[in-house]
């Protein structure tokens, strides 16, 4: 793979910065895996004698109002926070790409109808729409996923459609069409491979934004429900004790901050590597 070599060989500050980011991400993933195996506590294991304990050797990040180990809950919460938002971003990516490419390939009428549909979804404010869905169908994880997916696909549609339309004007696509390839063959062989790199960059961006949305909605009580160890739900748990035991909120907050930051930076890296093949 020739992609990795230029990062190492060019010792520009930006490049080495990205090497650091990649290294940090790897270290965090290793720590996460090790922690899940090594922790002596369960994510929902309460210890009422040890409520709101400050960080110590036995409880690295302290305990919350039910005496549960915050470090352990953060580790297990990774799957809720990062996993759910990854799932939502991917659902958005797939739906958005399919609709965008269909819009680009269908004639003027289909294109117009699909893009106006997309515009109308853009008109919903993202979080408010999710709150409304949660309010209508009741707060639950599934409803959170549905609500956020419904408002997350439009930017993929816009990008996929505009890229595909621009590519269709390119001579290699015109040539392929004149050579007798039908539109699905052109879609699979030329359009999709050329559209995907830019979409992946947008996808990482969407992922990090969705982490914030999932945590925010859970914090408001519309998403993942406590006792589940989702980071936003943990923030919600710690809110009454913010004054007396700030560590209950600080560590989940830091976890959200670091993961969003790392994913954003990884997206930048991905853009540098993928978006321009030349």
């Amino acid at each position: 793979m020739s992609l990795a070599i230029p990062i190492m060989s060019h010792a520009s500050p930006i490049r080495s910065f990205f090497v650091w980011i990649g290294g940090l991400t790897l270290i965090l993933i290793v720590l996460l895996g090790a922690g899940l195996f090594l922790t002596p506590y369960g994510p929902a294991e309460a210890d009422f004698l040890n409520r709101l304990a400050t960080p110590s050797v036995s409880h690295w990040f302290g305990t919350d109002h039910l005496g549960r180990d915050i470090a352990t809950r953060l580790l297990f919460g990774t799957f809720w926070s990062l996993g759910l938002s990854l799932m939502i971003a991917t659902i958005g990516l797939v739906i958005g790409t399919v609709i965008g490419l269909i819009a680009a390939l269908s004639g003027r009428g289909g294109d117009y109808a699909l893009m106006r549909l997309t515009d109308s979804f853009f008109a919903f404010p993202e979080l408010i729409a999710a709150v409304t869905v949660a309010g209508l169908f009741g707060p639950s994880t599934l409803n959170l996923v549905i609500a956020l997916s419904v408002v997350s696909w439009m930017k993929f549609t816009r990008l996929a459609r505009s890229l595909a339309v621009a590519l269709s004007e390119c001579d290699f696509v015109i040539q392929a069409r004149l050579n007798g390839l039908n539109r699905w063959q052109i879609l699979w062989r030329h359009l999709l491979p050329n559209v995907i790199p830019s979409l992946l960059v947008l996808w990482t961006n969407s992922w990090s934004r969705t982490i914030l949305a999932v945590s925010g909605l859970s914090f408001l009580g519309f998403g993942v429900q406590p006792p589940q160890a989702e980071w936003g739900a943990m923030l919600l748990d710690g809110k009454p004790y913010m004054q007396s035991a700030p560590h209950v909120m600080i560590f989940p907050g830091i976890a959200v901050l670091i993961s969003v930051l790392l994913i954003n930076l990884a997206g930048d890296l991905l853009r540098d590597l993928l978006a321009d093949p030349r």
Partner: protein
Amino acid sequence: MRFTRPRHILPRPSLTLPTKETALLSIDAMSAAIGQQGILHDISFTVDRGDWLGIVGGSGAGKSTLLKAILGARRPARPQAGSMIFDGVLRPFAKGWSGRPKGIAYVPQSPTHGLDPLRRIKWQWTQLFRCKCCVADYKPIFTALGLPDPEMHFPHEWSLGMQQRLLLAMALVEEPKLLILDEPTSALDTVIAAQVLTEVERIARDKSIAVLMVTHDLALAARFSNQITIMEQGRIVESGPTDTVLNRPQHPYARDLVAHRAWQRAETANA
């Protein structure tokens, strides 16, 4: 309301004419439009076997649209009237045809748009023949054009000149009767452009391929073409053998073009 000719008046597309005496390509009273807006009006010209016709015009004169229409594309502009006879086969523009007529090859304007940047060169080469339902070895024609073995290379790993020659190879391998060049020099520097065009000239002479070249550069057209057609705003304003057009241009636009070339010449003569 759009006016279309009734179907039954149109001649059958498979009508064949005796080929020896007639022109290789002749376009008769062709027009095209995007929506209601006319792009090409009453275009007629002929290309004889072994001819090199240069179509000269500024940006937006409809040159590329004309090429795309000859190749059978109906987007962005839709051909509406007129007919084309290529190699003895009559095709009415209003009815259209699907795909490039056999015997016409097309070299795109620039390699950056002509080659898929994410596909290996070999893949693009084989795809060309998957559509044509035959297998062709790249080695002879690559050697003839001075191209190296593509191995596992992507297009961007080759220089622009090599990529342009690759496009040329892709066009020539079908042994066309008419080669269409769309602004062959716009993406290349002058030295490489000259190399590529000289190459085209040699091959066209050897295999007696007619060439239809679209360019905005009258000097270039004068160097390579024996027939020149000047277009302005979707109409042909001047047409004839290169010498006649250069020495006795009739239309004001053609005169301007020729004068500009004379001015360039005067400058190089003084230098």
